[in-house]
């Protein structure tokens, strides 16, 4: 059975967002995989267009603003319309958003590969006019969402829409703040960069992913969310605490000491929204593990929630000065960013797509392939995070011991090979996901009737 109120155009929109997101996932994680082999084999592919320093920004910006942004926005637009009880409003804006995302990701990838970047500033490497096209996509999706919510048939604004509308607004303000040059000279730019890089993650991906989870979990489990109030608490505390923590990326630098301390204090404060959110989700799943296990989508959501809890709590611990003295500058940070952006964000995106796309197209993904996707991706990222955490700890210990720098490189080398193996597993999972997207959209003419079951028990 298909979801209510779905018309052909809304279906095409969700499909188009998901298919293009999948394209960016494949391309940019293939780039990531190539990079992971450059650590054990640094003389692999020394052409300028395949050089590490250029691919690095293509990987991060492409996975963030190509894959994750498209995947989450596509699902979020679907959820906004369903929770408002009306068909999606402002369709032209939604389509315009899709085009802008893809144009920005294409131009961003090409310009970065040509060596044009915005000063090696992490997650804002795209030159300003590419970033502006991306912001147009965010604003357009936001207009469509606010329009839909304003016209809604339901009495209250559902929690998911709080998070979506918040995400679009925060990211627009953040993008403008990061792009204006007048207060970004020398150390001033360092302060803005600290503010930007963490908010780009926490005020955008976190908000969209949480909004999707607040819809998918109760829908598939056919039970209300454990606490609506905890969801509201998470919204406001995330909004107030997150913008203050950016300077924890630059501890022990010449940024004012009190400014760094403030960031550390609020990093501890972040435990409130993180535990409120992840606790709320886990308590919603409590006692229904059999439904979770039998569903195709819910294991992804469960793993995503777990990584949200683990990764964000790890972030708080990492922000403490004593931990930074060991782990800052090391590969531990790269492990952390994959635990969060991959374990949390990408898994929620997959869970959302597996839960919602079949309701739109009437075509279920392959059970076997979905299972393989889940295990390869979860084991892959598990290995990834563990080996890089060990490598990072070793690097930090060698530096503190006063060893020559090259010792820290040689010590990390076996773990970098392990990371490349984990990368193969993760990339294989993405290929399987792409196959499933094909099956769910155009691949199979058969339409499954069993999708109507709320738990998604059989597919």
């Amino acid at each position, binding site marked *: 059975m298909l979801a209510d109120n779905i018309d052909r155009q809304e279906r095409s929109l969700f499909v188009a967002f998901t298919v293009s997101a999948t394209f960016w996932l494949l391309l940019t994680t293939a780039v990531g995989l190539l990079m992971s082999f*450059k650590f054990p084999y640094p003389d692999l592919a020394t052409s300028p267009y395949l050089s590490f320093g250029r691919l690095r920004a293509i990987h991060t910006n492409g996975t963030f603003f190509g894959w994750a942004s498209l995947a989450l926005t596509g699902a979020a637009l679907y959820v906004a319309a369903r929770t408002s009880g009306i068909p999606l409003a402002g369709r032209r804006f939604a389509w315009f958003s899709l085009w802008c995302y893809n144009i920005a990701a294409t131009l961003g990838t090409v310009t970065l590969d040509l060596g044009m970047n915005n000063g090696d500033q992490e997650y804002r490497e795209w030159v300003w006019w590419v970033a502006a096209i991306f912001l147009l996509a965010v604003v357009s999706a936001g207009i469509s969402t606010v329009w839909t919510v304003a016209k809604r048939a339901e009495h209250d604004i559902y929690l998911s829409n709080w998070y979506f509308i918040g995400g679009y607004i925060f990211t627009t303000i953040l993008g403008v703040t990061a792009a204006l040059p007048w207060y970004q000279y020398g150390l001033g730019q360092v302060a*803005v960069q600290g503010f930007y890089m963490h908010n780009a993650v926490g005020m955008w991906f976190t908000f969209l992913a949480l909004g999707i989870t607040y819809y998918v979990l109760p829908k598939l489990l056919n039970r209300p969310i454990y606490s609506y109030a905890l969801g509201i608490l998470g919204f406001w505390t995330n909004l107030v605490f997150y913008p203050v923590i950016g300077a924890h990326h630059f501890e022990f630098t010449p940024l004012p000491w009190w400014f760094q301390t403030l960031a550390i204090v609020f990093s501890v404060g972040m435990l409130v929204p993180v535990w409120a959110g992840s606790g709320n989700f886990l308590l919603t799943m409590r006692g229904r593990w059999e439904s979770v296990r039998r569903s195709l989508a819910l294991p992804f959501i469960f793993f995503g929630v777990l990584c949200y809890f683990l990764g964000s709590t790890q972030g708080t611990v990492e922000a403490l000065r004593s931990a930074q003295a060991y782990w800052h500058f090391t590969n531990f940070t790269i492990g952390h960013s994959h635990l969060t952006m991959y374990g949390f964000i990408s898994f929620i995106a997959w869970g959302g797509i597996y839960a919602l796309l079949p309701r739109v197209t009437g075509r279920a993904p392959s059970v076997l392939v979905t299972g393989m996707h889940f295990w390869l991706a979860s084991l892959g990222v598990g290995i990834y995070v563990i080996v890089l955490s060990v490598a990072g700890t070793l690097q930090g210990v060698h530096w503190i011991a006063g060893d020559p720098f090259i010792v820290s490189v040689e010590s990390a080398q076996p773990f970098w090979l392990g990371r490349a193996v984990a990368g193969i597993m993760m990339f294989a999972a993405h290929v399987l996901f792409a196959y499933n997207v094909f099956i769910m959209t155009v691949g199979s003419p058969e339409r499954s009737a069993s999708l109507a079951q709320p738990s998604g028990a059989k597919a």
Partner: protein
Amino acid sequence: MRNVWVLVGASAGIYGALAFVMGVLPGIVLSHVPATPGLRPLTAEQAAGREVYVSEGCAYCHSQVVRPLAQDKAFGRPSVAGDYVYATPELLSDHRNGPDLTNVGTRQPSDVWNAIHLYEPRALVAGSIMPAYPYLFIVRTKALANETVVPVPAPWGPPGEVVVMGPQAKALIAYIESLKQVPLGARSP
């Protein structure tokens, strides 16, 4: 909540205010710190080299900030705010797959070493994972009169040909060698 415009207004207002206080305001204040006495702006060639540095993403593995921690002593004195007055875009970075470069011009001032190292790092440092940048150089059968030959040791050079400095390599090396901390004068012990 029932009025979507209240949600939109409250979100935009609160976050806008926080973005100003936590992003823009520190940016304004710290953009105006005075330069460390003795610090000089980059020459045109060094600035061109810095653009190559940014373009090739060197900051993804090399930091340019020395912390007041024992393990950073090898990289120089602790960095101060005034050190970054001429450093826009900032390149502090938060990765050290390679060593910090704040003061590398003092540690490694040799043109020849830096050129060979950029052409093929493993020719000089076994176990290095730094990418090789052969495309910043020109390979010819014979160097032209005004060109500088890079003595790449066997077996790392192109057999039967010579490696000469390209304009980008020249600029990048000028920039790398310009990375020297100025002493803090009276304040330094």
